[in-house]
């Protein structure tokens, strides 16, 4: 018994502060937020009573919240498809072995180092929605190149505006996905490729039947990482459009609600956002844990 404690005792002691910190600042505060969302605290006065799931019910019958969820869905889908497409494309190109691969890798990865707010301010100008005479940013560029038909209202379009909002994010994070896929490619043993080639596979067949299936864990983790980043996205949207109906997502709606001191409603939005992200992340973690145990 004493021997066993001696085995894991020091280890436990070492991580104990982290466990305490996470317990308090993550799970404790999540608990307190859930508690707040079950009250009727809609002003700066302390809460008076518990109202159960009334706040959640109100949220899901609130047109503004449903609109923000729809915006979030469009943003997430376009963001995921865009980053995975470009990340995979660049990884494929670099994996062939070009001269100056390190240089290109740095260029593709560099935008990730830029703050979303700083790039958001520039993208705000680039994605200016004026067309024709008053056009600025990308619309003006299209005009100058004679590509007038490409001019469009970008993020101020009522239904598909969020797809334009995903552009800066795709630009910034494709490099990261490229790095993930590159690492994935490098992790495939050379013998597999040689064996496939010896069996007479064409390049296309090699990729389709040998390499891509090996990449599915990498693709899955890329999907999860990009997915939850898009759920949390706040600074980019605030920098590009400010807090507005047309580009509202739950995180921005929560911020606006907090500004009006409606604490219970803001807490409810936060918990809904947490659940959505959890739905995305937890199955992945469970599957990973199972894979680890299997090994």
């Amino acid at each position, binding site marked *: 018994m004493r021997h066993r404690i001696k085995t894991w005792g020091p280890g436990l002691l070492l991580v104990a502060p982290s466990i305490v910190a996470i317990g308090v600042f993550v799970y404790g505060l999540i608990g307190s937020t859930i508690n707040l969302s079950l009250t009727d605290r809609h002003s700066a*006065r302390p809460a008076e009573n518990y109202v159960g799931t009334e706040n959640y019910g109100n949220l899901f019958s609130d047109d503004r919240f449903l609109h923000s969820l729809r915006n979030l869905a469009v943003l997430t889908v376009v963001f995921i498809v865009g980053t995975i497409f470009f990340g995979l494309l660049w990884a494929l190109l670099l994996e062939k072995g070009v001269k100056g691969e390190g240089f290109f890798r740095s260029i593709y990865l560099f935008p990730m180092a830029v703050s979303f707010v700083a790039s958001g301010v520039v993208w705000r100008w680039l994605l*200016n929605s004026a067309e024709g005479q*008053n056009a600025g940013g990308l619309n003006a560029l299209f005009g100058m190149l004679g590509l007038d038909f490409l001019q469009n209202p970008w993020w101020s379009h009522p239904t598909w505006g969020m797809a334009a909002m995903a552009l800066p994010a795709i630009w910034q994070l494709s490099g990261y996905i490229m790095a993930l896929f590159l690492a994935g490619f490098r992790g495939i043993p050379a013998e597999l490729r040689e064996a496939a080639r010896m069996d007479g596979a064409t390049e296309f067949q090699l990729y389709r039947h040998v390499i891509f299936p090996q990449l599915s864990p990498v693709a899955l983790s890329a999907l999860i990482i990009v997915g939850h980043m898009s759920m949390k996205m706040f600074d980019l949207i605030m920098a590009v*459009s400010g807090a*507005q109906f047309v580009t509202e997502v739950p995180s921005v709606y929560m911020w*606006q609600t907090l*500004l*009006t001191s409606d604490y219970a409603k803001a807490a409810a939005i936060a918990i809904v956002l947490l659940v959505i992200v959890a739905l995305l992340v937890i199955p992945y973690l469970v599957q990973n844990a199972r894979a680890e145990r299997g090994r």
Partner: protein
Amino acid sequence: MRRTSWIAGLAVAGLALAACGGDDGDEEETGGTTGEASGEVEVFTWWAAGGEKAGLDGLVSVFEQECPDFEFVNGAVAGGAGSNAKQVLASRLQTNEPPDTFQAHAGAELTDYIDAGQIEDVSDLYDEFGLNEAFPEGLLESLTVDDAIYSVPANIHRANIVWANPAVLEGAGVSTDAPASVDAWLADLETVRASGIEAPLAIAAPWTQTMLMEAVLIAELGPDAYAELYDGGDWSSSDVTSALEKYGQLLGYANADRESLDWPDALNYVTGGQAAYTLMGDWVAANLDLEGMVAPDDYVYWPAPGTDGVYQWLADSFVLPVGAPNPEGTKCWLKVVGSADGQREFNVAKGSIPARTDADPADYPPYQQSAMEDWAQDTLAPSLAHGSAGPVGWGDAVNSAVGQFSSGGDVGQLQDALVAAAESQMG
């Protein structure tokens, strides 16, 4: 091994000492604050730059003369027209560490603070400083909540002004005088569009559209029925429906890129000749002065069509928080804010007009002189977009509804959303 444990031990000791040092520092700070409580007055605003900062500096110079016992401490938090500052303020008020005074829009925006018991009733200060005689009756009425007044306004701005480019108007054959009504304005807009200006009305992000909508409501309903709307009136009435329809028609003449603009961009469309009109508050006058523009050659202005004789006011004001560390200092600050000297120094630099009716117009630039004349005689109407008509929550809900209308154009949906916003605030 021994050496490693020595070094580890030293490191732990160093950490522990640093922790102790930190504690001492904190204690000193709190001790210091209570010790110097009679000396410092921390003024919390979001006036960190430009004409607003110049105005604050003017107030401070008068404060230093009138209240020599106290020291001004600038607690300003920059950014976002107060949205950063309001968050910082909210957390400080929650933890019972309020500043000595803070800036807030006078009128119904204070409701949140009053309900939460975070600001003091300053009616007795009004008696002490003689402000009941100096401020106009209509303003005092608007500031009074349950027979108590909670803030001292430093300035008055007017929200319902249209600024126009006379060259564009003359080019289209339209008179540079104010159209008599919203319908006349719609006709003029059509004429200007026919002369080649695609989007004659320049407007910006949703809160500026809310201002336009309010101006149309004042014009169509009259100031009394309009003010009623924020006090239990009926947003679902047919008068409101027809007003909203006219607002929708006005929006049809507005620029399509409005969501991505802020009010200075819309103003630039007008001064640059790409649009003829914009509706914005009179802080525009300070901007135009800075650019060297002169009325009526470079720009003309008039109360929004149909609202002549109505002054849609908003005011920056200061309050006395509950539990302020230095109430005597705050009272002296409030005295300066309400005094003739303080208001003069503040407003001449900031571009607004004093709330007091006994100010000398000769001290002020031409726009302010005409505004002061109007202030003394016009009917008052509140502004939701700027906090004098309702609390922040109401303004946010209306801005969202107006933003949705901007891309959808469904008047029925807009009206339903406005009704819902009113119900959630009044109920």
